[in-house]
């Protein structure tokens, strides 16, 4: 008599076609041109990047496009010490919230080209782009951020974004 069956493996495969949506399409096309495009809410006037076509706070459509600098300030961060399937970067590395100049919400990205223990709140950083010939309509054009040779931003300048 064989052992009772206690489990089965049933691989599942589903295919989906995703739509970027209008706002993301604008943003990703901007990416393919080496530009960071945000959108400004007509009511609260805040700039969202990446834009989502709506202001989550006001619940209205956003249309006004704003070009955002690739420079920004680290508002907060963590040091990741465990490897991730999706990433080729070897831990430990810094994953940070970066407030790009001109934007009103932080952007999540990795900080590289810098000893991870030097990453700090208020640090000034800049986007590092992939080589131009590799640009596609994707977030991946910005590989990571690296330190800028600028004095740290004062805590008060970004504390409301914490």
């Amino acid at each position, binding site marked *: 008599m064989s052992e009772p069956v206690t489990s089965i493996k*049933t691989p599942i495969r589903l295919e989906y076609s995703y739509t970027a*949506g209008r706002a993301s399409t604008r943003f990703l096309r901007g990416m393919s041109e080496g530009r960071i495009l945000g959108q400004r809410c007509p009511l609260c006037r*805040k700039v*969202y990047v990446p834009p989502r076509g709506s202001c989550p706070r006001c619940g209205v459509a956003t249309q006004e496009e704003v070009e955002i600098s690739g420079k920004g300030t680290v508002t*907060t961060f*963590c*040091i*990741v*010490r465990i490897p991730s399937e999706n990433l080729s970067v070897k831990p430990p590395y810094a*994953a940070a919230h970066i407030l790009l100049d001109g934007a009103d919400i932080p952007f999540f990205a990795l900080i590289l080209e810098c000893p991870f223990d030097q990453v700090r709140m208020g640090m000034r950083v800049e986007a590092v782009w992939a080589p131009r010939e590799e640009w596609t309509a994707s977030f991946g054009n910005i590989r990571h951020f690296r330190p800028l040779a600028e004095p740290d931003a004062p805590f008060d300048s970004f504390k409301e974004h914490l």
Partner: protein
Amino acid sequence: MGHPCAVIGVGQTKHDVKRIDVSIAGLVREAAQRALDDAGLGWREIDAVVLGKAPDMFEGVVMPELYLADALGAVGKPMLRVHTAGSVGGSTAIVAASLVQAGVHERVLTVAFEKQSESNAMWALTVHVPFQQAIVAGAGGYFSPLIRAYIRRSGAPEDTGIRVALKDRKNALKNPYSHLVFPDISFEQIANSPMLWDPIRYLETCPSSDGACAMVLTSAGAATRAPHRPAWVRATAMKSEPTMFAGRDQVNPQAGRDCAAELYKKAGITAPRRELDVAEIYVPFSWFEPMWMENLGFAPEGEGWKMTYEGATALGGDMPVNPSGGVLSSNPIGASGMLRFAEAALQVRGMAGEHQVEGARLALGHAYGGGSQFFSMWIVGAEQA
């Protein structure tokens, strides 16, 4: 509001990394049967079933209430399935309670579960959706920067998280259902465990568990025949805010503060730390305890960590937090919120066994989900009003 609602039965499974001894149906039935036994009721006496769990990708079963209708005795009855991310266990209990409070049903069975070993929770939580930014750091990587921001804002000592983990892991030794059990747990053991996302260490993190929790909620009339003391639902509240918007405070979210304020108002509570005897709150990473102490109004802003430091949140303290061992000890994601609500009920029924808080009469159950944006809470008491 509405008709009084009582918790007359509580059941939960032994939580574990992989419950290979039961199917999904077997898992939920284990919890549900225990709740019914506790309530002294049979399956037929239940009027409606409310099921809750987190994303279906955790098991690979779409809308599992359909598959589980038979296992949960729901054939011929109304059945709902709630999904509000991590707070779902709590919201599910609230939806179930509202059925009684609305006078729609007399006896409602509510079950929350996760059998995440059947799929891949890590994959499900970080699956890369095209056109959206890839989540590179996992759930811990999302919350760790917020914790760092809390430490900066409050000036809390760096080992506060270790103290929370130590307390919860010691409490877990008194809970026979706990997944993670470390009989010799010590401060050093936690401090020396691998750092995952600075400042969160391995032993300061919740596990991934298979588990289920169930409760039987009834009207006051049906509660009179209950074999054990009921817990009375004194207030419930749910609040949500957007994931990300300019100026959002993710460390001390407004939705959490508003939810607690509404809850206390409904329960007639003006000094929560003094009036509540125990709190079961959703702490998946150690540092959430001090953060939630402030968010819940138990401590002034920036001082939540002092409650941990002073031992106020320990079993013998003036505001025991997570005497069950909390989410740090067992984390079947869809059930974790309901476990908090259920443990709060066990406390005021005097049925929490070794982790009973002496004389607990009023308890808080709390759950949160998403990017600290969905909150569900309830207050249960030994008295109806």
